[in-house]
């Protein structure tokens, strides 16, 4: 039991931190530009493919740096040559643009690397045991994943709250004209933010690529859950995204370990559901089976009870 709890906790934290890596860039872009970027998970996917490709040429460690930079460049280009033009048509046009872009990137990836999952295995340099736990070795790459994610959180938080740049960026969101009048180049600021957000997604992709699976559907698979994270955490709040990621990661992981159903809850109350029919089917679904829908349940609950999210500052 102790072993199961420990490993579930560890797995939950690792999954939560991966979600945070993915959603931090998205929430950053949203908080500063008000753009809900549907192509964010696609940039994450690009990060995974780039790192795999680059690692084959020059090794894993350089790829860990170069792939996110490449993703940052892609992000900058998207903002400079795409979003900025579309921006004039308002938010709906922006959303449609990023939505379309997600499909375009997906197809490009298929053209370049094919439909099958690529063999993106844990690079040999980090494929060793970090420590022993209950007689089982724990892989180092998961530790690395956690370290990168926590480092990312610290970097973002400090850059936001403690640097001059962060203050200017925050001001540019609510009062772009004023910031512009004070002599700051607001459009350039936006390019920069989009580039940083995309680079963070790319970095998440480097790690997520071999932790999960690198295939053309990874963006579509992870896209929805990332939106859950930023809505639950509060749109635009980085600490909120962190808390929400951890919450979802841990809840989902522990739910898998629970073999209880509604039936078990009702039984002590002396209420037995009929042996067949829809009610019976519903009552016998185990928590474990329902685990993947729990985040979405949480999303609905948050939107009803607290529309601005756990740590958000404005209504969703």
């Amino acid at each position, binding site marked *: 039991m102790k072993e*199961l709890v420990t490993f579930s906790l560890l797995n939950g934290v690792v999954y939560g931190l991966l979600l945070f890596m993915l959603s931090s860039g998205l929430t950053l872009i949203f908080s500063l530009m008000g753009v809900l970027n549907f192509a964010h998970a696609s940039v994450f996917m690009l990060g995974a493919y780039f790192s795999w490709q680059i690692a084959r040429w020059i090794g894993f460690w350089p790829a860990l740096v170069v792939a996110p930079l490449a993703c940052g460049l892609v992000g900058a280009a998207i903002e400079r040559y795409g979003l900025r033009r579309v921006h004039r048509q308002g938010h709906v046009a922006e959303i449609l643009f990023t939505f379309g872009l997600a499909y375009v990137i997906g197809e490009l990836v298929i053209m370049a690397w094919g439909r099958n999952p690529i063999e993106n295995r844990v690079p040999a340099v980090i494929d060793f045991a970090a420590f022993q736990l209950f007689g089982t070795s724990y892989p180092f790459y998961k530790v690395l994943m956690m370290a990168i994610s926590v480092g990312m959180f610290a970097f973002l938080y400090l850059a936001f709250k403690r640097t001059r740049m962060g203050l200017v960026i925050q001001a540019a969101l609510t009062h772009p004209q004023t910031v512009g009048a004070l002599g700051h180049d607001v459009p350039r600021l936006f390019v920069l933010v989009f580039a940083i957000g995309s680079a963070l997604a790319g970095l998440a992709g480097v790690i997520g690529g071999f*932790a999960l699976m690198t295939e053309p559907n990874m963006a579509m698979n992870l896209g929805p859950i990332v939106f859950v994270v930023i809505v639950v955490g509060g749109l635009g709040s980085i600490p909120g995204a962190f808390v929400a990621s951890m919450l979802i990661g841990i809840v989902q992981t522990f739910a898998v370990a629970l073999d209880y159903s509604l039936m078990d809850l009702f039984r002590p109350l002396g209420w037995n559901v009929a042996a067949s029919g829809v009610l019976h089917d519903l009552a016998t679904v185990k928590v474990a089976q329902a685990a993947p829908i729990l985040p979405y349940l949480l999303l609905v609950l948050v939107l009803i009870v607290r529309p601005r999210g756990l740590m958000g500052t404005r209504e969703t």
Partner: protein
Amino acid sequence: MRAFLHRIGIGSLAAAALLAANPAAADTFKIGYIDPLSGGAASAGLNAQKHILFFADKINAEGGLNGEKIEVLSYDNKVNPQESLIMLKKATDEGARIIMQGNGSSVAHAITDAVLKYNERNPGKEVLFFNYAAIDPPLTNEKCNFWHFRFDADVNMKMGAFGDFIAKNKDIHKVYLINQDYSFGKSVAAAAHKMLAEKRPDVQIVGDELHPLQKVQDFSPYVAKIKASGADTVITGNWSNDMLLLFKAGKDAGLKVNWFTYYGGGLGSVPAIGKDGVGYLKQVTEHHKNVLPELLPDEAAFEKKYTEKSDEMYYWRIRNMFALLDAAAKKAKSNDPVKLAKALEGMKLDTPLGPMEMRADNHQLLQPLFVSTLSDKVKFDVEKSGLGFVTDEKIDAAKTALPTTCKMIRP
């Protein structure tokens, strides 16, 4: 104006090319292949498509079916039953006489019902349904019909093959079942319960898990649960990403169990488990690369034609399916679907791996099955991984037969 004329010129050229292709199409024997060609399960659909094109070409090279060339029309259903029905309509509109499908028993159920209805409403224009991989047992039992033929052993037949093996293996004490939460996965779990109760009542089932189909990104939580249960053996019907990711998570957590799988040798799975699977990973299939000392001629030709890393002959049953179709056409001396179906019933053929027979009572193909284990000492490896399967046990076609509840209604 000139540009305009030019454009028309190109347009009519393209139209002419299309027309030129069409007259030939009028006297071909059309097969409608409906399977996922995009989305999460596309790798399986595209791989099977290569097999189907390969064997159709082979028959065409030998003169076709009673002189008619086979033409394969492919339709993408995204493993979605509703979408499959739209594609089925398209295929019948375009003159397909046989529908081929395999991925997803949910899809096969939808197609077999729709084909039955279509044939009732369109006498004289019947279509057949050749199912090469959907192995939910009801398809050849309570839901059987005259138009459906299954070329893969069903869940219970494959579980039976494992059963004989597990009965002899006294090292197995605690079994964990993990399957996908839909008709097929539930069938595997039910078959495992029944098999263990019959053959090894002393074995304890320490877990019976159903997880969402092709939705889980990280199986670590499930693996933690398997470890905590103390299981020494896992039985799973998982396929495609669900198999591969389960292996991956198991490898990360250092899970050492016997894997009894239906699709553990499927695309990407062997590289995912790697050396950890040697001696532990077992599968039951109708074929693997080391089933004979040398590659079969079809296998060698297939690998010569398709040269991508993942292009290996995996669906030997598709070879059997086309061999039976060819033989049925010769026997019926006609390409009429009703006559083909009647010729197929009870048909026996020899294959390089032993005799096979299409059962007349429920249209289930009986072919030799092999229980095999992953090994690092093989002549032919899987996906250039250095690992491949070696046979533990061969089960002859006749021995795989199970009683059926099918009440076949013939036209």
